[in-house]
């Protein structure tokens, strides 16, 4: 499996999905997508390989991707302060799209 191709696909899918729902936050959404994918790239690749080799179940995979979102929230809290950033729906949408795209492509 070409992981770079998968990441590209996830990004395209995220831009498509978020572009529809979050048109008013276009720039912010792009920043969130880039930050999520960049800091998560190595982990996503490892987890995707473990999913393909069936060492991780879909439920495990989903749990781990969500835990990555929580780490990013902690990083945001650390860096910017709790009240300074919008942390909710946008990131949930990113997680859902990542998991759905990976499951569709690799399983």
């Amino acid at each position, binding site marked *: 499996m070409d992981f770079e191709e998968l990441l590209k696909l996830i990004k395209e899918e995220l831009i498509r999905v978020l572009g529809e729902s979050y048109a008013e936050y276009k720039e912010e959404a792009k920043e969130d997508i880039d930050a999520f994918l960049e800091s998560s790239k190595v982990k996503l690749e490892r987890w995707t390989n473990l999913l393909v080799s069936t060492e*991780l*179940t879909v439920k495990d995979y989903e*749990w781990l991707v*969500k*835990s990555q979102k929580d780490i990013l929230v902690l990083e945001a809290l*650390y860096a910017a302060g709790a009240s300074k950033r919008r942390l909710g729906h946008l990131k949930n949408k990113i997680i859902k799209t990542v998991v759905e795209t990976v499951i569709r492509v690799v399983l």
Partner: protein
Amino acid sequence: MTFLVISCQSLKTAVYDQYSYQQAISLKVESDAIIDHATTPFRDHINVITGLRMDLKKLVEYEKNKPNNSISYAMLQLLENEDRNLLGGFLKRWEEEQQLSEAFTKEAKAQIMEAFDLIIKYEAEKNKTNETNILNFLEK
């Protein structure tokens, strides 16, 4: 004037707290050891897990009541929350499924340890902020 007072208030950060720092490190070490057992039945470790949950709850409650401490409190709440995907969520899943796979346990543990590191680092940074403030004050 009211606006100015509110703005200054929102910029305040709790001072470095040696107790919080030590407790966070202690919880990290404790969690590290307990998570390694998640490949074996939850019921075999119920006492230590209950102890860990209680220690975490105590620290969250301690942080909640410190003034100007919303960030540390939010970080610990996230770690503790059983509906999220860090320590609290991991323990809940272990309890529900009784036993977790080796691959999942290893990957989840790395995530939880990373979360602890951020919390510990944030507390330690408060020390540096205080130090800088004192040095700035002395240099004036």
